[in-house]
């Protein structure tokens, strides 16, 4: 390598061009998709989730009977009695239909709070992480306050004080999830902000908004989204717990948690039927848990 030559001549520049191997480049999301397609467990449970969502959406058309129709004559009948495929509850309503319809509220109360928390907590976290200083301290100390409560206690306290009901329950759950999401977002943003390419973007004259949009968000959204997706299963559990305690959905709306609470009285009469709504909660929560785990593994690519 001639170090004494001061000018790079044409031949050398050409040589630099030619010694580069060909390589197909795949985007990040395409790689994630490829990895997911090779993960049978995640795919299987993703299908389960899709099925649950579909059933809930199509409830009006696929439920065999009216979930609200009570019948004093046919209370607490066992599985398979007449056209009560899974038996009837303490007011004579068809359990299968109520299970199908119940999916709606359970999914709603599971997903909406996490989505709201993602929006609010994510924004707060990114702002706190990027701006730093006093703003950061203020926001994070506020979040620390909420961390002093165990999640269930906080959810029960807030929705209990507000008087119960589905909307109050969703508000309570959102407030439970905002601090952890904010914390994850802030930590990721702080980390990204210190990296060289963000400094280079600032040196190029990018405005704060432009840098956050182009450089920070792309690198922060991943971990935050994965974390939030892991919260969905917790949200479903706590939400149904609230309904079980009488703090969430109000009767006579069909809801899995609420059904567990009312069917409890009949535990000696028709034991296994009472367990069915809980099974639904379990399967839904489990599916979300496994899918979010699989997502995390697929997205954890060393780049």
């Amino acid at each position, binding site marked *: 390598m001639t170090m004494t030559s001061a000018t790079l001549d044409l031949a050398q520049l050409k040589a630099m061009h030619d010694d580069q191997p060909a390589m197909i480049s795949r985007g990040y999301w395409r790689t994630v998709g490829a990895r997911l397609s090779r993960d049978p467990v995640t795919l299987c449970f993703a299908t389960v989730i899709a099925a649950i969502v579909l059933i809930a959406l199509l409830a009006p058309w696929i439920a065999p009977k009216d979930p609200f129709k009570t019948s004093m004559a046919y209370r607490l009948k066992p599985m398979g009695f007449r056209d009560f495929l899974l038996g009837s509850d303490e007011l004579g309503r068809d359990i299968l239909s109520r299970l199908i319809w119940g999916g709606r509220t359970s999914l709603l109360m599971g997903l909406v709070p996490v989505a709201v928390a993602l929006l609010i907590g994510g924004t707060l976290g990114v702002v706190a992480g990027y701006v730093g200083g006093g703003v950061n301290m203020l926001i994070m100390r506020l979040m620390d*306050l909420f961390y002093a*409560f*165990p999640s269930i206690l906080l959810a*029960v306290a807030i929705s209990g004080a507000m008087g*119960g009901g589905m909307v109050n329950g969703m508000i309570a759950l959102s407030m439970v999830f905002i601090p952890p999401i904010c914390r994850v977002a802030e930590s990721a943003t702080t980390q990204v902000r210190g990296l060289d390419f963000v400094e280079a973007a600032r040196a190029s004259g990018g405005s704060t908004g432009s840098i956050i949009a182009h450089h920070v968000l792309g690198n922060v959204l991943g971990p935050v989204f994965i974390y939030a997706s892991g919260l969905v299963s917790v949200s479903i*559990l706590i939400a149904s717990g609230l309904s079980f305690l009488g703090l969430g959905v109000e009767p006579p709306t069909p809801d899995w948690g609420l059904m*567990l609470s009312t069917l409890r009285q009949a535990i000696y009469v028709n034991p296994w039927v009472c367990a069915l709504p*809980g099974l639904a*909660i379990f399967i839904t929560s*489990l599916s979300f848990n496994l899918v979010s785990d699989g997502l995390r593994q697929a997205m954890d690519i060393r780049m």
Partner: protein
Amino acid sequence: MWSYVLRRVLFAVPIALGVSMLCFGLIFLAPGNPMQLLLPADATAEAIEIIKKAYGFDKPIPLQYLAWLQKAVTGDLGLSIANRRPVLEEVLNALSNTVVLSLAAVTIAFSLAFVLGTIAAYFRGGVIDRGVTAMSVMGVSVPNYWLGMVLIIIFSVELGWLPATGMGAQGSTDFSLFNWENMKHAILPIFTLCMIPLGIIMRTTRSAVAEVLNLDFVQTLRAKGLGELAVVRHAVRNALPQVLAVMGLQFGYLMGGSILVETIFTWPGTGFLLHKAILTRDLPVLQGTILVLSLIFVAVNLIVDLAQTWVDPRIKRA
């Protein structure tokens, strides 16, 4: 080191204050006039006036808070609307019952989880590892009150071995460890409460031990000729602080989050008390219970924090 301890304890004070503020603020979340909530429906006009003055409802909110705080610090959390008994007394009675459950559940969960988690980490990829992972995932996905119901169905309804609800024969509320009647009642609730901590501690142990086993110093130990059992002992000792921390936190969660399991089993602990208070709109009890439970949680977090620093010298957050 002691300056760190002092600083950490002092830092907990504003958190405790903030918690108390939130608890105080709960009243204002409730629909309706706060005064109506503190009094039974048939209160006379006189009683209303007295309460107004006593609680300072005619004063601005910050002063109300300070008045409430002052009383709370001396132990006066008001009277229960339902049975006119002092709130603190009710809460403390219930607390002892909850502590029994939580402590037992955490101890059993920890012992089991630690052993299984370590075995899983050592035989990584083996049957036990996969079983442990599966159990952990299921443990955190199962609604624990449903699990309680299923256990009741199996052991009470179908098999009739164990009682379904309550704490002792004829709904007695004193608990004695050596009374088999009481123990019978406690078995199912404890087992139900175990599930979630079991899953979480198993997962933490497995990942902590696996991580330590991967470190270079373990290779050094093996190269020195140390037997496998001794190597595992070393690894476990390094992973212990992390696991103990999680265990402490889980205890805190159980204390604060026992409401669902206690409701299913009608176990007269703080969770059950809380539920009753919500159903009867007994706000003083609601407030008092939440305050006590969250302060206990703050205290448990603090102890876990300090214990971790004491055990693991690397963690010395400035």
